[in-house]
């Protein structure tokens, strides 16, 4: 129990730091060729992706909502990031199921494969990041009329964000 609480404390601290990096550092990154602002570096979904697997689904959803709202306050997009992050958190168990064997993790249980490998983690993160980006821009445009723009922005931002997520995985080797 105390281990779980410690893990939760650590996860919350990690979320706080990731959000701080997102809103203080990454937010200010501007690509010189992207004057229209098509691509966004969306790094903070990793905070939810790599939450402990033992954490219950409702708590994961609530944490995702709070984290999303916090980022939205700094981005001045109330509800957009939170909605996308909650959707991604809801899809997380599905990603777990898909990568269950490779990750060596079963949702709600203690992980027994301590080193799933960079590419496995990246694949797992990529699936969730793609869901997040699509939801994020769907909420931002808020209409199916601009579906082409939504898809272009989703792909562009997904690729940009994935590079930072990959760096994060390489540097920190997160455990789920």
């Amino acid at each position, binding site marked *: 129990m105390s281990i779980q609480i410690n893990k939760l404390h650590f996860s919350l601290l990690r979320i706080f730091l990731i959000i701080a990096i997102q809103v203080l550092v990454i937010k200010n990154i501007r690509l010189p060729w992207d004057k229209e602002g098509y691509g966004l570096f969306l790094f903070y979904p990793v905070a939810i992706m790599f939450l402990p697997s033992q954490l219950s689904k409702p708590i994961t959803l609530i944490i995702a909502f709070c984290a999303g709202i916090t980022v939205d306050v700094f981005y001045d997009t109330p*509800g957009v990031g*939170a909605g996308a992050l*909650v959707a991604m958190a809801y899809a997380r168990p599905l990603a777990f199921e898909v990568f269950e064997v490779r990750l060596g993790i079963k949702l709600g249980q203690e992980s027994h494969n301590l080193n799933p490998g960079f590419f496995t983690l990246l694949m797992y993160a990529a699936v969730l990041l793609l869901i997040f980006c699509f939801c994020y821009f769907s909420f931002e445009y808020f*209409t199916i009329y601009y579906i082409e723009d939504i898809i272009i922005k989703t792909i562009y931002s997904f690729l940009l964000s994935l590079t930072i997520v990959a760096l994060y995985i390489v540097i920190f080797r997160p455990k789920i």
Partner: protein
Amino acid sequence: MLNVIQFIIRFGTFFLFLGLEIVCIYLIVNYNKAQQDIFLNSANLLSGSVNEKFTKVRSFMNQYSVVDSISQENAALYQERFNYPFLFDTLDNFKDTSLVYSVIPARVINNSVSTQHNYFTINKGTSDGVQKGLGVITKNGVAGIVKSTSKHFALVISILNDDLKTSASLTRNGYFGSLVWDGKDPKYFDLQDLPRHAETKVGDTIQTSGYSLIFPKGILLGTVKEIKQKEGTNFYSLTCRIWEDMSKLDIVYVLKNNAKPELEQLEKDVYTDK
């Protein structure tokens, strides 16, 4: 109750997800100008479309009440029109009778046109003031005369009945005769017994003569199609095409002549004296 609790526990995560997404959408719509505009526009389109369909359904459901309402208005207008000449009656015959004609709207609920003696049934009876012998008209002319009544219904002799004769006149000069159906084509009638000196030509209109206690003068009926001379007589007859299509009767108006009992009594006295 237990089932409800079990259901909530089972799908609790889904409901929480749904609730959080609703909160997010609420925030998006209320605190983001662009999304708010899109939402309002989409909501207007959706509500407009739904309202349009709902209105169509509602108007379909209300069509009978609308038709009834219109027929009431028409009846009031007919009543005004038929009573109009009496306003200028210099003999003061109808001084005490403000309404000589009352008009009662009704719907045809049964109709026959295929025999020599046709009848139709209307949805108004004695409880609505309909009595035996009253005239029935439509917007295109005369339809028949009430033969018998029950409390809520009345049986009407159709003009497509060779027993029925209606007094009709030429609009251009007022010469009158009897309009009868020959039992063949429901569109064509004969205007019989017109005096030879009555000038007429094809295309003239015919109307009710007003020489009966049933129909007031001036209800247009149709046009002259053919002039037939009767050999050896001082009369001729006209073949007339009537405007009313008796095979699709719907709304009709029953004419009640409030002066009829008095006039009938008078005529009865005259014939009794003879």
